[in-house]
Structures are given as structure tokens and as C-alpha cells.
């Protein structure tokens, strides 16, 4: 068995067979789908956000657009999908179905009310249906129902109020799902804590606008001739997600467990989110790209990682990177260095020279006869952009080398 380690985790007193969950989205839309995801290896689900049903939900068409970079497809994903359009009764039956057939797996019911009463009623209904936890959707950035989703998450008093309403109505743990579309995500997180939330989930999608059609000037996805600011996700947003999770995990007054997400595709992404303080993890865009089968590689990868580092439990390394994450004023600016070249392996493309001239310290000249860069180490800024474009990468031909006592480099005046 490739997974040799115990990957189980506990969050808010609930045991997860492993930390990898589906997030609340099209990939967790029905009980049948989630059942297959559990069979494929997912440890839990934040079920597709359930509404009361008094306001009819209709998904725009088309509801998503892929964002490609070069020949790489789906670097990002833009969507205008709404919360569940299914009758409340069907969603509750699916929660019962899942808990009956997969009792060891965790079902988190994601809910969104359009009034204080709705939040309470939904919370109770989902608890009664057997949900292990609740996730309060304060963060969908493109709801067609005015004043809902992200609008709540951006009004910190409402975050606190609805969290308190739900907490007063149920006994199961309550997570608040946060939007990154605020100046400082720890502020609404503190409001959720004030309202009694037991944990946090983040990030929901980043408000984005991925592209405009060159023929008709309509943004994508083109919904009847219009595009909208809407949720952007996928690998492109991972740096934002990691930052938000780390900020919440480091905040001295928060101290709540976090379900982290945003662009997780590989075990490496997953471990990164754990290292910055996530206890469980959630995935949507990755499943939209690769299907549920991707979870197998994440679980195996985490297990091998734990073998390599001698970790027995995931909790052994949750937050392990946080002491290394600082604000820039903590840097030791006395330590300087240079870009070090292994020229024996150079293949002579000259991209390093081009970028050093136009974006670096002009420390590289070019020998046309030998097709090799020639470096003046005294002018190297150690900006390392040459290494970013160098195609010789296994192992890297250009590496950073610290040079003790090296003074900082400043270009001379042009005249």
C-alpha cells in the first residue's frame, strides 16, 4: 500500500480519515458525486452550499471560463455558479445518504441564508440530517441575490451576527468561510470568532476578471453578452490563499483551526497549506481539471513526504513553516550574495544576458563567439532573474550564493 502513514486529522473535535476534502462547489453538488469522491479517497466534503429555496436559484449560462497560460490549460478558472439550485429536501436527503453509507467520512454542510431566520433554520435542518459540521458561506463573490455571499463577508458585523445565530441553534462545530476580497482577512475572521465560530475556512474565490474577447469585447464567461466580476480560482490563486491562511494562523488573537484551500492540485500544494497552518484542506478547481482521481496522488505524496521527514501524524507538521514567515522588516540586510553560474552546463541561449541588461544589474556581457555570458560579479544584484529564465534547470545552472562581506550593489550614474 503506497499510503503507509496515518493521515487522519482532527478538527473541532471531528475526526477526518484524511485532511483532503471537496470544497463546496460543482464538484460536491450531489450525494452520488460525493460518494464516488469518498470512494476515490477524499476524507470529507463541504457539500455544495445549501439555501432555503424561498428565492429561486438559477445558474447563469455558461457558468465558467478557463484561463490558459501559453499552452498550459486551466491555470485559472473563472466562475459565476450560484449556490445549490436543488430543493432543500433533496440536499438534506443526500446528506443523510452520505452519512448512512460513509459514516467514517466527514460531511460539512455549507449553508447560506438570505435572512437571520434562514441561517438558523438551515443550520438546524442540516444538523438534523446528520451533518458533522457546518460551514457558513460568507464569501461567494458573485451571488445574483443582492446582499448575500461575499457582501456579508465584507460587512464584519453581519459575519459576527450570523455566526452567533447559527452557533446558538446547533451543537455541531461551525466554520466560517472567508473571502480574500478584503484588505485584511484577519478582521472578518476575528468577527467570526466573536460570533462563536469554531473554525475558519479560506479562501473562497478571488474576485476577478479573466479576459475580454478580442472580437466582441465581452468578458468571459460570456453570459448573454455580458461578463461579471466573479470568482477566480485554481493554481493561479495559490499564493493568495497561502498568504491568507498564514495570516490567520499567525494572528495572536484568533487561534482557530483552519480548513485551507486555493489552487491545490498536487501533494506539494497540500503540504504547503498544512505547513502554513491548515488542519484540513479543500479542493474544487483541481477536480474540475483532473477529476476525483487526483486525490490518490495527493494522499500518496503526503505519505511519502511524511516518511521522508519522519513525521507520524499530519499534526506534527501543521504550521511548521509559520516561524519562517515574517514581515520584511525582520530581514538581515547585511547578508548579500551573487548569482553563481555553472557555465560547463550552459547551452548558449543568452536569455540571461537579455534580462540582466534590461531588468537586472547589467553585470552580464555576451561573448558572441563562444555564445556564453561573461559576468562581472561586482555588479551582480543577486536579483536572480537570470535563473528564472535559464532553461537548464535539472539541477539549476544558476544558483544564489551568499558572499559574506559583499557590499550592496548600486548602479553608477549614467552621466
Amino acid at each position, binding site marked *: 500500500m503506497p499510503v503507509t502513514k496515518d493521515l487522519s486529522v482532527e478538527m473541532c473535535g471531528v475526526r477526518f480519515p484524511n485532511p483532503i476534502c471537496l470544497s463546496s462547489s460543482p464538484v460536491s453538488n450531489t450525494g452520488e458525486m460525493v460518494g464516488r469522491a469518498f470512494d476515490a479517497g477524499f476524507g470529507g466534503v463541504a457539500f455544495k452550499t445549501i439555501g432555503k429555496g424561498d428565492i429561486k436559484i438559477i445558474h447563469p449560462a455558461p457558468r465558467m471560463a478557463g484561463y490558459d497560460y*501559453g499552452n498550459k490549460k486551466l491555470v485559472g478558472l473563472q466562475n459565476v455558479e450560484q449556490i445549490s439550485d436543488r430543493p432543500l429536501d433533496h440536499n438534506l436527503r443526500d446528506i443523510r445518504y452520505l452519512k448512512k453509507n460513509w459514516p467514517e467520512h466527514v460531511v460539512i454542510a455549507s449553508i447560506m441564508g438570505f435572512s437571520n431566520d434562514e441561517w438558523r433554520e438551515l443550520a438546524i435542518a442540516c444538523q438534523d440530517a446528520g451533518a458533522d459540521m457546518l460551514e457558513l458561506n460568507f464569501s461567494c463573490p458573485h451571488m445574483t441575490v443582492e446582499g448575500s455571499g461575499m457582501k456579508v463577508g465584507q460587512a464584519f458585523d453581519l459575519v459576527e451576527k450570523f455566526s452567533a445565530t447559527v452557533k446558538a441553534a446547533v451543537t455541531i462545530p461551525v466554520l466560517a468561510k472567508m473571502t480574500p476580497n478584503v484588505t485584511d482577512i484577519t478582521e472578518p475572521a476575528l468577527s467570526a470568532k466573536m460570533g462563536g465560530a469554531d473554525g475558519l475556512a479560506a479562501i473562497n474565490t478571488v474576485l476577478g476578471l479573466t479576459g475580454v474577447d478580442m472580437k466582441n469585447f465581452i468578458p468571459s464567461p460570456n453570459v448573454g453578452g455580458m461578463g461579471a466580476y466573479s470568482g477566480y480560482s485554481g493554481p493561479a490563486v495559490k499564493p493568495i490563499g497561502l498568504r491568507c491562511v498564514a495570516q490567520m494562523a499567525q494572528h495572536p488573537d484568533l487561534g482557530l483551526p483552519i480548513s485551507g484551500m486555493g489552487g491545490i492540485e498536487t501533494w506539494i500544494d497540500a503540504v504547503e497549506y498544512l505547513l502554513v497552518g491548515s488542519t484540513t484542506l479543500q479542493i474544487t478547481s483541481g477536480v474540475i481539471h483532473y477529476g476525483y482521481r487526483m486525490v490518490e496522488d495527493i494522499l500518496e505524496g503526503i505519505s511519502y513526504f511524511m516518511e521522508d521527514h519522519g513525521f507520524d501524524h499530519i499534526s506534527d507538521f501543521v504550521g511548521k513553516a509559520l516561524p519562517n514567515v515574517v514581515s520584511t522588516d525582520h530581514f538581515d540586510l547585511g547578508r548579500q550574495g551573487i548569482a553563481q553560474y555553472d557555465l560547463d552546463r550552459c547551452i548558449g*541561449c543568452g536569455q540571461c544576458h537579455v534580462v540582466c541588461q534590461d531588468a537586472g544589474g547589467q553585470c552580464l556581457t555576451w561573448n558572441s563567439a563562444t555564445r556564453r555570458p561573461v559576468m562581472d560579479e561586482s555588479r551582480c544584484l543577486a536579483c536572480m532573474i537570470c535563473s528564472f529564465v535559464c532553461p537548464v534547470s535539472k539541477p539549476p545552472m544558476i544558483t544564489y550564493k551568499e558572499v559574506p562581506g559583499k557590499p550592496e550593489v548600486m548602479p553608477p550614474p549614467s552621466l
Partner: protein
Amino acid sequence: MDLGYTYSQAVAEASRCLLCHEPPCSAGCPANTNPGKFIRQLRMRNLKGAIATMYCNNILAASCGVLCPTCTLCASGCTAQGLDRPIDIGGLQRFLAEHSWEIGFRPIQAAAPNGQKVAIVGSGPAGLMCAAELAQRGFSVTLFERLEKPGGVLRHLLPEHRLSAVFFDREVKMLADLGVEFKCNQTIDGRAGLDELLAQGYGAVYLATGAWEAVRLDLPGADAGGIQGAMGFLARSKREPQVVKAEVKDKQVAVIGGGDTAMDVAVTAQRFGARDVYVLYRRSYAQMPGNPEEKLEVMQEGIHFVMLTQPLGYTSENGRVNGVKVLRTRLGDPDFGGRRRPEAIPGTEHVLPADVVVEAVGLKPGKGLKGFDGLKVDASGRVVVSEAGETDIANVFAGGDAVRGAALISHAIGDGARAGRAIADALLGGE
């Protein structure tokens, strides 16, 4: 022809490009094509810019992309080889051309008429390129072609599997769009015909009549039926394929030679239903001069490569060839061209049965231009010209295979472009 790249495949291939400083690929083309720039433009999604870069130096960019042995030219210096394999420059070039046809983009435009006329004799790559160069400088250009359609070797000799007629037509149409006039089925007859053109007000004449005569081996027994030169075989295969099919169907075909023409003959015979096709070559595989990729494909097609085999003569029965007398060779020291020289192994003479024999050992300009009084030609019939392409007759220029003997398409393109600029300079003189 195989299918070319789709847009996404082309972008993927372009993304492998290392975007070299002083790109070696751009220094490697006899036609001065600039892959280093057009691949970067493609990668940056500046497709129209890429197409314009490609076509500004080479009116047959698509055909070159398909036909050029890029691995020996532009791609030979490709730095991506340091990682794995060179960029498929020919494939990208073809994609850009097909994309321009698809979107109806005209990368080059004729200049406003300058009132001067130029005649071009022969509509192969050199003639077409010269025409494009001149049309872009405002000259009124007329192309005289002795056959029924323009294109020279590309249309009349190259097998359809190398360059499809539909594909080639789309590229040649760009010249019509430049306002170049084609006069087909028109032979310019000797010096008199040339003088007549000049008298008709053509300020200059460019002779790009190509190399249309097969070099023959002159072996004993070559007068038997069924033995022919590559030129005739390939031309007839395009003009009257049914007749040639009947000739080679279920037959044993021997092709003598190891260059691209020999490969074209061999594959044509095989696809026309020959039972077995033998390529007889007196040196070995590595010394075969043709496009290395083409050689591999031909071998994979099931053609028999009979290396180290020197033809000595032919055997026949009732006036029809029935075999090639051959002898084994071994490789000796390199000759002046650097290829190892074949040496006969005495006592190894034998006969390889063959019903059809095609000698594919080269093409030369032929007798045609020898009839032009005052035109200096060398012993092989090649026109002698200055660096700019001027002949000994005033205002008459020449280039392409008529000057070089059979050569790569990109050389003909380079010649045509140089001649076009030289003609423009000569005619516009002090202006």
C-alpha cells in the same frame, strides 16, 4: 502531406523555444528567413507580425517549411538541442502560413506602380521570389512559364505526398494578389525571344529557368526500354499518373542514387503499386546526401536500401531491361567533399533483377539556355553570373537552379530576392 499543427500545438512548440539572444536559427537560412523573430512573435500571440516577418523575406515560406531540411539549416544551431531536440521550425512556418490563408491576411503588399516593367522567365521558387520582391517595389512584373501552370519543380516534379497541389496553389495565389501577371504556355525562344522582351519595354529580364535535364550515367545497355532519368519519371508521374502506375504495378523497380530526388522516385514507385523498390547507392546510408528525416521516413515506408552497391550496366531481354549489373563497394578515405569514397570490391559482380530502372543521380540546367547567344554558361550548362545575378547581357539577370544546378529551394529563394533587389537598384538607379 501530413496534417500541420493546430494553433494550440503550434503555440506549444513555440513555447519550447529558448528565445535566444543572437538566435543561431536566424543565421542559418539561405533565404534569410528569420525564425528567431517569428517564433517569438508566435509565442507572444502576435500571429500577424509573425506571418509578416516570415513572408517579407520568403514568398514561399509555407513550401519551404514543408520541404526544407531544417535540421541541416536553421535548426542545426538550435540551442534547444542542448536540452532535448531542436524546435520544429519548418512545422511552425507551415502553421503560420496556413493560419494566414485561413484568416485571409495579406502579409505583403504591392507598392504603388513605378511605371516600369520586368519580365521573369520561369516560375519556380527563384522566379516567384524575384517577382514578389519587385512587385513590393512598384514594378509591373510578368512571369513567363513554358508549362501550363506556374511553380517549376515544386509543381511539376515534386510528388503530391511531398507538397500537395492545393497547398501550393494557396501560396502561389499570394503572388497573384500582388498583381503579378502569369503568362503560361509561353516559351521564350533563345536570344531572339530575349531581345524581343527587352524591345517590348521590359526594363530587365530575370532568367530562372531551373535545372530540368536529368544527369545520366551512360552505362552499357542503357538503351533498353524501361530505363529512364528521374526528371522524366517524376514529371510523367504528375502529368499522367495512370500511365506510370501501369508501368510499375507489381514490378521490381531499381532507383539509382541517394539524394532527395531518388527518395521521391522510390516513394512514388512504391505508392504506385511496385512490388519491390530498391534504392541502389554506391556509398552508405550516412553519406546519402538527402534530407535525413526524409531518408528515415522512406526507409520506414518499406523501400529497400541497397547500400555499397555500384551499378555497372544493364541486362535486357527483347529490348526491355530485366536487371542491373552491380558490384559491391566498400568505403575508402574521404574525398575532397569530405564523404568517404566508394571503392569497388573485385569479384562481387552480380545482377539485381529489375523491370523498371530510374537513374536519379542529379538534375542540370540542360541545353535550353545554351541557345541564348551572348549568355555565358559553364560546361554543365549553368549560367555564369555576378554576385548580384547579372549575366553578360545588359539588363538580363539569372538565378536559381539555372545558375547553381539542382539545389535547395531556400537557395533559389535567396537568389530571387537578391536579383529582385539588384534589378530594382539597376532600374531605379539614381532616383
